[in-house]
Every structure is written in C-alpha cells, then in structure tokens.
C-alpha cells in the first residue's frame, strides 16, 4: 500500500480530486475508487490523505459538501465542484500541462 501521500504530492492530489468532481458530484469512496480505476491502479489514495484534502479544498471554497440520503436510512457526504473550483482546475490543468511539456523536453534531450 502506498505510504501516506508520499507518492502523491498534496497539490497533485488536490488537482486530481477537482478533476474527478468536474464530471459529477461524488462521495469520498467514489472519488478514491474513480482515481484508482482511471489511473489503472497506479494511484491508490488512502483516507488518511483524502479526507484532509477534502477539508482543505472545502476551506478554499473549491468544493462544496452536501449530505445526501442513501439507502438504509443513512446519509453520505457528496462533494460538488464550485465555480471557483472550476476556475482553479482550469488554471492547474494548464500549469500541469506546461510542466509536463517542459519535463518531457528535458528528458528527451538527455539521451
């Protein structure tokens, strides 16, 4: 099991969560599952990193929590991407793309 967030830097995890929520609102486990599935198992986020990330993103106003009832009379906390969050995601995606391009270029030079 990957160590506590040592494979996923805080900022990157935030970005992945935002991206996951860009499609539709989800609850905690859903987000973790989606990230694991789509990354084909490369990234497995444990709750110890995930939930603090939720709190952070919530405080920054990028996601909004909402309790929705599930079956068995329970409720689950769903997170939605806010307008701010959407903007932030766009900015981070661009930055990430820029970094990736740069790194790729450098890596290809060193032969």
């Amino acid at each position, binding site marked *: 099991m990957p160590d506590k967030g040592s494979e996923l830097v805080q900022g990157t995890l935030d970005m992945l969560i935002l991206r996951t929520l860009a499609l539709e609102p989800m609850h905690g486990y859903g987000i973790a599952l989606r990230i694991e599935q789509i990354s084909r198992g490369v990234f497995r986020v*444990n709750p110890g990193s995930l*939930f*603090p990330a939720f709190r952070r993103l919530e405080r*920054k*106003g990028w996601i909004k929590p909402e309790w929705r009832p599930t079956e068995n009379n329970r409720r689950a906390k769903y997170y939605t991407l806010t307008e701010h969050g959407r903007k932030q995601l766009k900015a981070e995606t661009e930055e990430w793309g820029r970094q990736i391009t740069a790194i790729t270029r450098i890596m290809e030079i060193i032969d």
Partner: protein
Amino acid sequence: MSILRNLTSGLRTLFHKEEVEQEMDEELRGFLDAAVKEKMRSGMSQGEALRAARVEMGSMDAVKEEIRSAGWEGTLETLWQDLRYGMRQLRRNPGFTAVAVLTLALGIGANTAIFSVVDAVLLRPLPFRDPVMLVQLWETQASPGTYPLSGPNYLDWQAQNQTMEGTSLFTWGLNYNASGAGEPEQALVIRTQANFFSLLGVESLVGRTFLEGEDWAGRDHVAVLSYGFWQRHFGGGKDAVGKTIDLNGEKYAVVGFMPAWFRSGGGLADLWIPMDMSEKNLGPRGNHQYRAIGRLKRGVTVAKAQAELKTIAKRLEEQYPNSNREVGAAVIPLKEQLVGSSRLQLLTLLSAVGLVLLIACANVANLSLVRATGRHREIAVRRAIGASRARVARQLLTESVLLSLLGAAFGLLIGWDCVGILAAAKTLPFPRTNPIALNGTVLAFTIGVSLLVGILVGLAPALQASQVHLNEELKTAVKAVLGPSGRRGILRDALVVGEIAISLALLIGAGLLLRSFIKLREVEVGIHPQGVLTAQIVLPPKKYTTLEQGMAFFDQLLAGLKGAPGVEAAAVGSQLPLKGGNNAKIIIEGRESSAFDNIFVEMNAVTPDYFRAFGIPFLKGRNFTPQDLQNAVEAVRQDVHMSQSGKMQALPVGLLVAVINQTMARKFWPDQDPLGKTFKLGGNGPFTVVGVVGDVKEWGIRQPVIPQAYYALSRALVPPVSTLSIVVRGAVGTEALPAAVRSQVRSLDSSLALFNVRTVEEVISQSMTDTSYQSLLLTSFALLALLLTAVGIYGVMAYTVTQRTHEIGIRLALGAHPRQILRLIMRHGAQLTVVGVALGIAGALVLTRFLANLLFGIQSRDPFTFVVVATLLAVVALLASYIPARRAAKVDPMVALRYE
C-alpha cells in the same frame, strides 16, 4: 473570501466539536461501508471484504487526527492540549517547577530592571518637541574637548548662522539665596535666553514660560519654577503664579512652573530666570562661561551645522585674534550630549545581566534534561501510539515555554519592584532624561526574552526525547549504563562547561571593576581629608557691593571661627579640591606664549590658612604674609580704578604674589628655582612666586594633576562675587563644626545661608559614586552567576553519581577503595572545570577590552585579577563536585548492586 470561510469553518469545528466529530465518524463509516460493498462486488466474502477494507483504511483514529490537523484550528487545539498537559506535568513535579521558575524569575527579573533603565535613557527619545533636531553648541580650543561659549561669540554665531531655526543661551547652575516663600534656601538657578523653553518645545504646567523680550534688563525679573521648588515653597498651589520671590535680595515675579518630568542642569535646577542678553552684560569675548542649545532647520544635518559654525568661528578668529585664537565650534546632538557617557556603562550592565540569564537557562536546561530521562517511558508510549517525533518535541518545547513564562511572570514582579526602587532613587549614575518605568517596550522585551529562554531551555530535552529508542524503553529491563562520555552526558557536560566559562568572564569583569574602585580610593588627592569640613556660601551682590564689604565679612568670619572651640584652622577659597574648573592661560615674560597654548593653569583665590586647613604641605618658600594681603587689596583697587577710568596699565611687579604647586613649578621652570619668577594669568597679574606647595587633584580623582596657582582672596571679592568655599579643620573630628560655622555666619549676617556642607571625605567618596555603583552591580551579578554555576555543577555531579550508582557498586564489590571512587568522580568534575576555566579566560581576554574605558589604574588584561579569579572559581567548582563525590565514595556496595 476563502479566509472568511476558513475562519468560520474553523470556529465551527472548535465550538461544535461534538457535531463535527459525529459527522466525521459518519463520513468515515460511510467510506468503509462503500469500500466493503465494492470489494464484495468484486468477489470477496463479507468477512474478507471487511478485513481488507479495514486494512486499507488503517486506523480510524489516525485518519481523524489527520483530518483535524488539516485546518488551522487543529494547531490551536494541539497547542491548547500541549499547554494543559504541560501544566499537569509541572504540577506533578513541584520541586523541579519551583526551582526552575525561581531561577528563571531571578534572571528575567534582573534583565527587566536593567532594560527599563536602558529604555528610559538610551532608547526613548528626549521628551522635547522633535528631539532629533536639538543640538548643543560648544566652542573648541587647541586642546581636545569641548569648552563653554563666550557671550559675544555666541551672539555672532546666532546672528550669522543659517542652519539653525533658533539657538538659546543659558548659564551653568548659579547659587542664589531664595527667600520670601516658605523656608529660605540656596536655590540652583539657571539663567536663560527668553526662547529657551519654546526652543525645546516644552510648556509650563501652569502659567507661562518666558516671553520674547524678557531677556533684557528691566523686564527680566520673572521666574519659572521647577516642580520640586514649587512643591517645596508654594505647597503645589496653583495660585503661586503671580506671587513674588526674593532672589539674592531682588524681587522676581513667578510666572509659571514646569511639570515634574522637566529637568535641566543635571536635574537639579530649582528655577529659571531670564538673562540679560545685551552684549555688555554677557562678558568679554575671552570669558567662556555659557552653554547653548540649538534647533536644526528641517533637512539640515549635524555635520552641516557644525561645518557652518566652524566657518563662522574662523571668521571671528580673524576679526578678534587676541581672544579667539584657535577657537572653533562643535555641534553635538542633544541626546548624545546627555546620555552618551552612560552608554558604555549601561550596555555593560545589560550584557552582564544577560550572561547571568544564560547561566540560569543552562541550569534549568540541565534540570530539564535530568527530569527528561525519567520520562523516557512516557515518551516511548506516546510515540508508540502514533505521535510523530515533531509532535513530541513540540509538546516538550511548549512545556518549557510555559515554564519560562511562569518564570517571567514572577520575574516581572521582581522587575516591577526594582523599577520602583530605581525610579524613586534620588541619585543615580545615569541621566534622568525620561522617567524609568515598566512600559510597553519593557514588557515586550520581557515576554520576548522569556519566549527565547523557553525555547533555549526546551531544546535540549526536546532533542533528546526525539531520539528515544522505543524498544529499549518499553522494556523494564536493564538500563544502559552510560559512562560519562555517553551521548546524553555530553550535552549536560557542555552546559556545565559553558556555565563555568561565562561565570569566569563575569567574575573577571567584576574583579577588574572592583580593583579600579579600590585604586580610585587609594588615589592621593594631595590633602589630609580627615576632620575637614567644607561649606559654600554666596554673597548677594545687592548687599555686598564693594570689595571692602566682602573682605570685612570674611575677615570677621575667619577670626570668629579661629576662636571657636575645636577649630584648628579655617580658611576661604574660590575652588575646592576635586572641584576645580577655573583656569586660564599663562603668560611668562620673555617666553614664547604659544608654547603654553594647551596648558591650563588652575586659579584659586585663597586665604593664607587654606593650605593648613587642607593639609597641603609647603615644599619651598613661604606662605602669604599680611603685607602680601594688603598689597593684593591695593592692587585690586588699582585694577578697578583703571578699568573704570578706561586706562589700562600693567600693575607694578612685586605687588602681587602667588603660591604655585609642584606641577606648575616643574612645568614652567623645570631646572630653575621658581621662587622669584613672575607670570601673568589670563588678565591677572603679574604675580611673583613666593612659595611652592604639594600637588592637589583639582580636576577630579581620575584626572591628572594640573598646574595650579594660588593668590590672595581679595581678587575674587570684586563684585559680583561668585560662590566661595569655607574650609574648617577640626581638632577632633567634624561633628561640632557645621553648627559652629553656621552660627558664626548667622551672627554676621542672618540672611545668608550655607549650602553643600560636607566633609571632605564625603566629597571624595561622592566623586566616586559612578564607579562604586558599577562595581557594586557588576559584582552582585557576578556573584549571582557564581552561585548559579556552583548549584549547576553540584546538580550535574550529583545526577551523574546517581546514574552510576550501579557501576560504583560493582567497582566497590570488585575491591575498589572508596578513595578511588572519589577520585573517579572528582576527575570528571576537574575535567569540566579545566575546560570551562580555559574557555572562560579566552572569552574574558576578548571581552574585557570593552571595559577599558570604565577602568582606572588597571589594565583590562591584568594578570593578577585573572589568576586570582580563575583560582577562586576553580576552587568553588571543585568543591561543588566534591560533595557528591564524597557521597559516592560512601555508597554501600550491597545497596548499589541492587540499584537499577
């Protein structure tokens, strides 16, 4: 926006903890359920899925802890927890807490007290309007130093300068008989130009200060009172304004009085009256007797103003070559003028007290280390349940900061007391520009220092704790027996060595100052001070308008005193030993006068018995005879007549005689017999030398002896007469003398009052108060440091012994002699001492250089002091190790072997 959200969210977490916890639980349980469901869907059984999900999730509590620390309120909570935990720990160890808090309180309290003085004197600006622009003006001459101004020079400076908004002239303190309101007393009066107060920017408390134009004859009989004088003579009544007082027989109208904080004239001025600024009243250009302040124009620097004044002075030098030769100008910022000389003293004291605090910190750190070893189990447990190293270290640090703040709280109480004492003290060796108080700056300093102390003290145990080996500590078995050079031992040893070094440096500094003080006391003033009384008196010019009146008064006074019982000799003089300052340039017929440009000759007008009264020995020649005195009076009459009639003629040689001191004889007539030689002094003379007496330190105890000439009193009795001193030698001590002198004076003129009635011994010791204060304070600090260090050494040695009890038991059981055990422990102590002393000497060699200006008669590297102090400290240190060593030697091996 996110800040607001952050804030409100955090607050909600703090205040609705239950709710938030429940929500977290609910969400996490939901996560677990969803995980189980997902795993079951991919084929696991419910049991397997549950187990797998639990493993993936890890500890729920750990997760919750992570979530909690994600917000700012998490840190706050942690801090709060740490504080409460720390308080519990401290309460559980009252002994440790008490000792630590007390030690820190002493150190922090002393620092607070000294810093409050530093703040009042050095840091706070002067209490005037725009104080940075205020400067003091001085003349300079060929020899180094600054000199009072002459009136006409000042007027020219005032008229010609462009760099200053305004300047104001004022006198030194003058003694006036003040009466007419309450008890008559000798008041210290300062005469000023009318703009003095407005230039400084100070307002009177009630009434007004001087108006423009009041510094002119006819309008100058107004007075501004000081707070103290107003309280003493008018009982602090507001109706004092408009009343009149009597100064030297003349009536002055009180126009206002100043607030309590306003001081000038060294803080002793009783009243201010305007001075007549007309040129003729200010004296000749060659008489340097005034001071002046100025206010720079906006944007003008001190350097610029000084350069301009120097130029003006040069112009004056060309215009008036006789009086203004080599006369230049100096401009000094007022703050520098008032506090500059105290800076070194105060910074030395602050450094010393800071070092004492360092030692106190080292002691408490050592104590903490000792206590920390007893907490290894506790820390191991906390680490085991998931606290990170940083968390544990943070908690320990919080605890020590808490300890330090407690110490600071008590320290503030101590500091408050000290500040109260300092503020109320009548005389302090520091200028009283601002009142000494425990204000915001001092408080901030104290808190800052205690935070620093807390971190310093907590570093050692925090560092140690973070290296606790979990496995070892959780077992109850064998404790590692670490020798004195074990890792933990090194930190403690280093602290002790540091303490020894710092103490040594402080003790050496104190020792040097003490020896300076002793050397000062041994200085030969040149007189026999036992049993001699001095008193000063002023003859008001209104009443004593002629030379004859003055002479008659003093002739009768001396005759009466000589006849009084218990009086061996009585005399009058214009200067007292150690209190000189009246000097002039000498002119010797036939010698190049420029050779004597930098040499001042002190002048003293005396009656013949002056030498006997002070015990100044005659080395050659003779004293004044009655004929000499008559001639002198005749000469004065001729002088007065000449200056009145406008005809200036030299007096015939041989009319005036003088007695000179040995330094003067050696300086001007080195290989000749000075008797019979003649000289002129300033505008006085010519004098013929008739006698040579022993040297007297006229300028002060630290100053070298200067050439001095004594001549007949009559020259000083030409009105207006300045302050004169009466000297009486008692046959059997000085007790009866003050009353005798007072009654004699009163019988001649009941309106006169004596002041500064002191024995010569008092005068001498008062001239050393500065040094005595410093030595006292520094010695106290050094001794405190020594005490703390001794306690520290004892503590560490005792602890080491306890640590090694098991080992000692083994050694004893194997046949070691108790004395060998003693040697073993002592060797450790001796090692620490040697290293500490070596470091301390090295440090002292570097640091005492800064004390050089405060020392007298002793070098900053005086080997004797170094050796004696180092030996003293080594003995104390070894003694502190000896006591626990002896205990170690007495250990019963059977008990020791069972000790774990």
